């Protein structure tokens, strides 16, 4: 089942990436330190981009095609475009203004038929701001106020319109179980679901309803194609909400299971197991006591935000240490900004985790190749390898360090100007 789902996602992704590759200019980056992520570091290397893809990568002797535009990046670091595993890009502009926010449909806890792709605002001022720190791809997710708030999209941070930027629509379904999905906490005016019991029951019922719905559909189809076709009657009424759950019940696509406390993680894991859901864990910020169990599940984790406060009784670094503790246990991790305005700070979270024991190469992997694999797009993204989409960043230092300044960003092999609303203001007033 897992294989089938991967094939499905890869096909979707391949279709999306097929749009790219029309850029004709050949660009060669020469002399840089190439952090390939997949096969180590190449000093004084050469990377060639052609038709939107990486056409060659190697040492100083790597052939550069005639007519290529050569950019000398001696002394610079070259690495794959960064992938943010949870953002709200394109769903918000000014946080405090409701009219600019499309992050959550709050009318019900179970809203799997919402698609962020329908709300994604390609021209948002926030994307160029994120881009200039080397973030080239991201998950766009609804916020976490519903148990099933709707389906994520996977985007590229450049393009003239939403269809160009939405590489994979409905790539995953967030399943939130953090205790904050209940609608009110006023006992006298309590409305179901009021407790974790209620939220779990409601979720189970929804998944069962979807299974029943599918059975009815199948029974109808079977009848219709069988000898008693005339007796099949009218098809079951189409239910978009239940229909939306089917790819997830089949394990074709992952649910992004958000939980923070160890008990919530286990309750949600129980439900995932009951329904054979394919899981990408999210947060696990206070679940350090059950990391072995998480590791045994084999599921990857979007860890953090690591800036969450530890519990009162805990040491100051209990949450900062989580990525290192997970990596030590063989858990595949990815970082996310969990934000819209501060997507640009994604690499710094990975960098901060290195202070608390995460090896730097693993930290870089957790914002490149790991998320590419988790989201099923590693055929095209996540490392500097021949044949992959040429999303490439050039910076003047360690990609994870706050002091590092990004000098070039290439998306689909074309250089993206490092300008945005903020650089315009800077240039206007810095005279």
């Amino acid at each position, binding site marked *: 089942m897992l294989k089938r789902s991967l094939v499905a996602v890869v096909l979707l992704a391949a279709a999306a990436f097929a749009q790219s590759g029309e850029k004709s200019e050949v660009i060669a980056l020469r002399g840089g330190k190439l952090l390939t992520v997949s096969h180590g570091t190449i000093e004084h290397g050469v990377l060639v981009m052609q038709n939107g893809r990486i056409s060659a990568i190697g040492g100083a002797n790597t052939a550069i095609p005639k007519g290529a535009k050569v950019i000398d990046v001696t002394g610079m670091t070259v690495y794959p475009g960064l992938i943010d595993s949870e953002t709200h890009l394109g769903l918000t502009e000014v946080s405090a203004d409701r009219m600019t926010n499309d992050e959550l449909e709050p009318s019900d806890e179970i809203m799997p038929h919402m698609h962020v792709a329908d709300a994604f605002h390609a021209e948002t001022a926030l994307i160029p701001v994120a881009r200039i720190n080397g973030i080239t791809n991201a998950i766009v997710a609804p916020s976490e106020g519903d148990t099933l708030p709707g389906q994520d999209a996977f985007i590229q941070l450049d393009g003239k319109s939403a269809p160009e930027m939405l590489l994979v629509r409905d790539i995953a379904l967030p399943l939130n179980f953090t205790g904050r999905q209940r609608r009110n906490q006023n006992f006298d005016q309590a409305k179901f679901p009021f407790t974790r019991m209620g939220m779990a029951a409601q979720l189970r019922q929804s998944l069962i309803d979807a299974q029943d719905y599918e059975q009815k559909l199948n029974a109808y189809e079977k009848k219709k194609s069988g000898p008693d076709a005339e007796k099949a009657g009218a098809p079951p009424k189409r239910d978009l909400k239940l229909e939306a759950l089917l790819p997830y019940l089949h394990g074709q696509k992952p649910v992004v299971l958000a939980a923070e406390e160890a008990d919530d993680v286990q309750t949600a894991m129980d439900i995932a197991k009951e329904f054979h859901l394919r899981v990408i864990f999210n947060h696990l910020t206070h679940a350090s006591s059950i990391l072995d169990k998480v590791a045994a599940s084999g599921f990857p984790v979007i860890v953090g935000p690591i800036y969450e*406060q530890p519990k009162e009784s805990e040491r100051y670094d209990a949450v900062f240490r989580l990525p290192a503790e997970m990596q030590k246990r063989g858990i595949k991790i990815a970082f996310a900004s969990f934000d819209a*305005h501060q997507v640009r700070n994604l690499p710094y979270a990975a960098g*901060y985790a290195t202070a608390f024991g995460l090896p730097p190469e693993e930290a870089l992997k957790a914002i490149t190749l790991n998320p590419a694999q988790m989201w099923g797009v590693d055929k095209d993204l996540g490392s500097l390898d021949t044949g992959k989409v040429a999303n490439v960043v050039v910076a003047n230092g360690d990609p*994870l*360090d706050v002091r590092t300044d990004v000098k070039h960003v290439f998306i689909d092999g074309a250089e993206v100007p490092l300008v945005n609303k903020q650089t315009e203001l800077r240039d206007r007033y810095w005279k």
Partner: protein
Amino acid sequence: MERRSRCVWVMLLGVFLLLIGSAIAQQQNSQQPSPASQNPQSPEKATPGEGKPARSGESAPSMKPEPASAPKDVVIKGGTLLTVTHGRIENGSIYLHNGKIAAIGKTVNAPAGATVIDATGKWVMPGIIDAHSHIALRDDVNEPTNPVTPHMMMKDAFDYEDRAIYRALAGGVTTSLLLHGSANMIGGQAIVIKHKYGLGRDELLFPGAPQSIKFASGENPKRVYGSRNQLPATRMGNFEVMRQSFQEAREYMRSWDDYEAKVKKGDKDAAPPKKDLKLEALADVLRGKLLVQIHCYRADEMLTEMSIAKEFGYKIRAFHHSLEAYKVADKIAAEGIAVATWPDWWGFKYEAWDGIPWNAVISLHKGARVVIKSDSEDVTRRLNTEAGKIIHYGNVSEEDALKMITLNPAWVLGVDERVGSLDVGKDADITIWNNYPLGSNALVDKAIIDGEVFFDRSLPGTGLTHLKEAQ
């Protein structure tokens, strides 16, 4: 008369209890303030801005006996010293004597018995100072019942056992300014604390620090009072409330001046005006007794704030947040006002829409004193990386970046003669880091306040030296 004698009696009792307390403490070799050592008078005595600075182990306000562990002489040896005021000293040493920096250089002359802290291969810098914090105030940050509440004293809500103080300390913060919130145009009066987590309340107060008061402007007061259909609901209302308040304060001061003039002339029938805490606090602003810290975002608001300050004759110490300072930084700099900002926050509301990460560097180049502060229980733990971002956004020098989280916030708090750099005579508030502190991967190994280690990462549990884990 009766009152005075009671006072004396309480004082005597206090001294008696203190003696017993210190005896017990010595016996138990205790590092905790024993309940008996709490001087009933210390809260008044400890009011910042009054009296001369008192050092731990000397006299009031700290009536606790010096902990047995507090060493008189300490030498930090072998690290790269980031002095903030006079560059780097590679492989240098600092001699701490009685909680002060007594010497700093390639080598220092320290007594033979001094406690040695080996900092070989490490980075040593002054403790970080957070010029904008609301930790340790429980949920009592705002008194949102009136847009003018200058008589609210944050000390009255100070939760000195709040773990946030510890977590900031573990991130290198040794001093913080705990401010009233931004619901009110004129909020309450702040406290300056040292992060001596594990000690008693009064020992966390920065002795002798001047008193600051918080002002706010823009969307927050508008929202708080406007949503109740009260004044102010607009920026017009915001500023008029301020002018009105200072006008009343002027009249209040005049009534007292008149009264005192009458008394001086020998008028025995003169009746004193009513003492009013609120007007008294506003009068203290006009008398220049309080450092004015203003929450604001937009450039036009900063200009209006400056004109009102001029009209009523008080000085503004710093604009906080001040995301649009870069638009009018030359004017701010000309008034000697500091810009206390975040490196990169923006977009969370309309007045933050024009925030840019080059605000700090542009303000710096136009001559303003720039501070990077947190306003966040999270960010206060990693202000070092926030300052590092200004190297990214603007390529500022190491010294300028360091100043933004040390000496410049010290100035905003009015304690720059005491802390904020590694200079002889200053309080020995020092942090030792395992990696370059302005980078992403640095951790605090030790945090020292007044010459005493309060956090040591190598220790098991919390890493705290003055907290009993049972607490």
